[in-house]
């Protein structure tokens, strides 16, 4: 559990860093932050973000998962699982 937790935190932190540029005002990005509602990322921007994360963590996340990713937490989880 400890290892999983550390991995998860590392992924989440990387996701937050990449998302920082899209942040509106001084809102804090949490796992519950809605990528499209709160950060106003369109579908293409989400896919581009996933590509950055795939390269950063050397993983392959099938595009089929995009439809299920709503929050920052979902995104981090998708990276961690693949």
């Amino acid at each position, binding site marked *: 559990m400890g290892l999983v937790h550390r991995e998860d935190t590392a992924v989440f932190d990387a996701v937050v860093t990449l998302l920082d540029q899209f942040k509106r005002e001084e809102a804090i990005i949490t796992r519950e932050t809605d990528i499209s509602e709160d950060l*106003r990322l*369109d*579908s293409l921007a989400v*896919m581009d973000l996933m*590509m950055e994360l795939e390269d950063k963590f050397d993983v*392959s996340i*099938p*595009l089929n998962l995009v439809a299920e990713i709503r929050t920052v937490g979902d995104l981090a989880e998708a990276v961690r699982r693949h």
Partner: protein
Amino acid sequence: MGLFDRFDGLAKLHAMATTGGEDPFAVRMDRVLSPTEAVINGRQTILIGTHNYLGLTFDPACIEASQKAVAAFGTGTTGSRIANGSYAGHRGLEKTLAAFFGRKHCMVFSTGYQANLGILSTVAGPQDHLLIDADSHASIYDACKLGSATVVRFRHNDPADLDRRLQKLSGEPGNRVIVAEGLYSMLGDTAPLREFVEVKKKHGAYIVLDEAHSVGTMGENGRGLAEAEGLEADVDFVVGTFSKSFGAVGGFCVSDMEGFEVLRIASRPYMFTASLPPSIMASVTEAVHQVQARPELRRQLWQNVDRLYGGLQKAGFILGPEKAPVVAITLRDQETAIRFWNGLLANGVYCALVLPPATPNGLSLCRLSLCAAHTAAQIKRVVEVATGVANEIGAFDAVPAKRAAAG
């Protein structure tokens, strides 16, 4: 929550796009005077965003063939080919296209969009992998959703990235199908097909090439990028459309692949829709002949590309990386693009305004596409209008222009 509340963001974007006065997504042509001119808002307007690359929409031979077909076979087929029968024109057009491309098989679809849906959703199944270019057309993305394959997106026009992503799949079962476009319609750049073919061979993959914008415009005989690069034998499937160079509507796929014909009873976007009407099949069959018989159309088109690209470049516009029948002007931001587009239309020039998320990298574009029938005078006028409007609204300024009082 209302049914359409989730489109609030989209509605706001649309409202913003209309701030320049016109609705860029609802321009109405009251009369079409020729492949290059229409009457819009009571004004004679140059059409330079319609993808009518060879100007065949008013070709006398195509019109005559179409008129004869509608008189002989009626206005529509009122059904699908598998349930309600094929017409002679369907098979005739398929044979004409197969011969044109030098391929064994051809299937025609009711739109280009459906051609991608119909092919991509069937050539890759649940165990397979579709590898699509990041800048793929919406129809390719939608085809992925319709199909059951695992979808991997690779960086636009990047063979090394494709190679890496295929490498990551090693050990996984199933076929790999690469999807690329010959000529990308947003910025007018072409695929590095030779490098893609090398990667394809290395990984034992297949490649589907969407030549929607390159058929008729590229290759010595107008067969597209694969012909231009001498790589037709290495491309497993070519998908294309009748709504651009061929001047009508519809789509097709040609291939030499053994067993291809089974797709006629497997591909849902082919089976469960009404087939193309006789008038369209006749005009497209004639258009294919025209593309073959009149290479000068392609020469005129590329002369026009040189004129427009050169003129706009000299004026200081930011253009796509390659000279192509699509010439995209990148504007600083959405607001500038909207004002620029409105300025062009108000001065009798109609092109396409394309905004994110339809564009790569969040670019705001005014997209111009050339026609063999454009005259040198029309292109000169377009460059003058574009330059004048850009100066007027400060589009060339390095710093964002101040909002106009009314904006």
